[in-house]
């Protein structure tokens, strides 16, 4: 029997998502038996050229992690899309743009100026900046083009399934893998995680008072958070109400509030905007001064509410 061909590939990624695949431990051996891994740059030595030589649709599944910010990443994403029957956006960066998406709050020029010139550790007297093409000793050297902003995978290619998380937990990776192998996949376009919000399964939910009322907003490092009481009840911002469940509460379990890496719940396009409404409704302030005082306690609201999802939010990018 011919084994189904599977590709695992990273674009603009930290490697954590590939690590999450390895974290399924011995199950990975069963997967390796059941499928023919034709590309996995972080773990195995394969060439992109051999993918280019394949027929369209020859790969059954491409698991793609990481965001897209340069022409090479775009090229690989499009190559895999063409050769694959199914594409799974794997991890927060591929699904939502991820933490690197916060770079959309600044410009390409500012990033280049800082990295190649202004940062205190940089010595660059000639003012060299990376060029897409340059000649050295009579030979042409090329580099991918760095784009103006960060894209999520579905900004670039059509995506069939989404598995969010930073990184996705091992059991959801296993669920996704077995769903593909056993052909038990849900409707195309689905996110392979529960549809409800994290608060629905959070163990701390029971400790929540009937009506949440925040008088002061505190940051997690400023206080010693009680280990079993709802973070919002303690005045600590937790994105649980607006974030999809399915992470296994790995942050909550180590006494850290939810940062939103699973993205919006089903039916919501912009989790940050929804959280604005949710948070505003639990602020306990009477006068305008009071509202302003509490709201001003949120340092960097955009970074807090869109930590993983700026490129797919309605805001997408800083204006001007």
């Amino acid at each position, binding site marked *: 029997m011919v084994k189904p061909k599977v590709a695992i590939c990273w674009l603009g990624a930290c490697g954590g998502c590939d690590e999450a695949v390895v974290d399924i431990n011995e199950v990975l051996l069963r997967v390796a038996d059941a499928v023919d891994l034709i590309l996995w740059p972080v773990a195995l030595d394969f060439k992109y050229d051999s993918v280019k030589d394949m027929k369209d649709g020859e790969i059954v599944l491409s698991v793609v992690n990481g965001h897209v910010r340069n022409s090479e990443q775009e090229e690989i994403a499009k190559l895999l899309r063409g050769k694959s029957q199914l594409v799974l956006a794997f991890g927060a960066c591929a699904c939502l743009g991820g933490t690197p998406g916060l770079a959309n*709050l600044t410009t390409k020029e500012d990033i280049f100026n800082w990295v190649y010139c202004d940062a205190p550790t940089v010595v660059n007297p000639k003012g060299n900046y990376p060029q897409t093409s340059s000649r050295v000793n009579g030979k042409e050297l090329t580099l991918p083009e760095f784009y103006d*902003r960060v*894209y999520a995978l*579905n*900004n670039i290619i*059509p*995506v069939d399934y*989404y598995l969010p998380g930073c990184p996705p937990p091992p059991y959801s990776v296993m669920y996704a893998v077995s769903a593909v192998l056993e052909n038990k996949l849900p409707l*195309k*376009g689905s996110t392979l995680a529960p549809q409800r919000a994290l608060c629905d399964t959070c163990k701390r939910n029971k400790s929540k008072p009937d009506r949440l009322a925040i008088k002061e907003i505190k940051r997690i490092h400023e206080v010693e958070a009680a280990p079993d009481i709802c973070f919002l009840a303690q005045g600590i911002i937790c994105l649980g109400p607006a974030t999809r469940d399915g992470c296994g509460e790995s942050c909550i379990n180590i006494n850290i509030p939810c940062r939103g890496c699973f993205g*919006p719940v*089903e*039916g*919501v*396009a*912009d989790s*940050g*905007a*929804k959280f*604005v*409404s949710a*948070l*505003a*409704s639990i*602020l306990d*302030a009477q006068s*305008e001064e009071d*509202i*302003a005082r509490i*709201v*001003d306690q*949120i340092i*960097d*609201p*955009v970074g807090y*509410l869109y930590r993983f999802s700026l490129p*797919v939010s*309605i*805001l*997408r*990018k*800083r*204006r*001007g």
Partner: protein
Amino acid sequence: MSQYKPKVVCFSCKFGWGYLTDEDTLSNKIENWIPIICTGKIDATHMIEAFEEGADGILILGCPEGDCHYQDGNYEVKKRVYLLRRLLESIGIEKERIRIELSIDPKGRGIPQLVKEMSKELTKLGPSKRSAVAEEMPKEAIKARGGK
């Protein structure tokens, strides 16, 4: 710049604003007017979307404090607007672009005037900067992720 006419989206509560006048008559006088039942219903998503669709400013007309038909909808939207202003400022949308008035005007005669006033203020600010990337996202992709 003399030709520039800011686009103001006006949300007003039907319980406090213009309920004694026929809605069609009033809507002829007010462009981009969205009468709703309780301003507490206006979600942050609606406001951000309005900017993304080309609004230069948003005017919210709610009932006087303590007079909300649903107890505290006007108070809720006020807090929401404060928080949203902070968020929008950090992505380059000035806080003056969202204005909220809590008052009462049964005949709604003051609404066109308030829109005009805000429009005047916005002319000084100039057009709202948009992300100019809306067209990049394939429609199917937005739908697939649960958006419109």
